[in-house]
């Protein structure tokens, strides 16, 4: 099982990626990184703006749970 540092690193990484896709405007993301899951087909499904927002949301959930885990490990 991961220790405190591992959870902290996961929380930070997921938080940064999640915030990027969730809060940065679409035009900015597109101009920075065309390769970051934009305008490509995955299993015949066109990746749209809302799919990226969902990806960001999932990463933010991972980030929150990681930080919550760190808090619980610190409380022990």
């Amino acid at each position, binding site marked *: 099982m991961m220790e405190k540092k591992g959870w902290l690193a996961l929380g930070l990484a997921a938080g940064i990626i999640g915030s990027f896709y969730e809060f940065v405007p679409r035009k900015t993301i597109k101009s920075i990184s065309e390769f970051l899951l934009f305008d490509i087909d995955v299993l015949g499904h066109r990746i749209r703006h*809302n799919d990226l927002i*969902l990806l960001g949301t999932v990463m933010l959930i991972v980030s929150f*749970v990681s930080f919550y885990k760190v808090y619980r490990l610190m409380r022990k």
Partner: protein
Amino acid sequence: MNKFYSNFLFSIAVTAVMNALDMTYHLATGWAVHLNYVAIKLTVIFLSTWMITQFIGVGKEEGIVASIFGPFIFYVYYVFAGATLNREIFKIDEQFWFFFLHAALMLIAYFSAWSFAKSKGSAIRTAGFAITASFFALALDALLIMVKWRLQGVEEEAAAGLFTFSVILTPLLSFTAGILLGILTDKLTGKHCTDVLAAAAVSGISILVFTKDISHAAFAFAFVCIAYYAVHSYKKGLESEA
């Protein structure tokens, strides 16, 4: 019982019950419910609940945290996602005050599911079971209705217009009656198989009588069996963890 499996079923139950309560409220008050938004809500609420349950645990504190965080992150999604339904025709639960409603419904869902497994009081356990099992089956039934329309090629906005409270009222009453009868059968006979069969049969038959749709009735029968299986399975798992 495998810890992962029981946590998974517990999270599925909480998510399904929360969404069924939410759909019932929305349809009763004239807000639109459609498959895409329900799918996102199911994903976000399930992931929040499952991750907290799997990596942190099940309990009062975890329940409160999941009930606040799940609806909050769902609201965040709404704020940043692009609109897919015409807002001039359909009212969608994207205002901030819905966060409080979703959190309250999530609290009801989480603590109903939790109290069935963990509560010491028999009446609370029974109430927890009744809410969890009946709304679990209702959520599956509502999904079936929406997926059926999608497969029949009904357009997104037309499907949102078709889905009214009258569509969900018969399943709601049928599942509630079925589950209550199942509980009564369990109290009278004490045999586990009899209560599942009684609950599933009553739900299926009443849906058949009101809708005249035999496939819907067969699915209703199956949904009650699935709800019973899921609820009893996660209970066993949570009890063995304690």
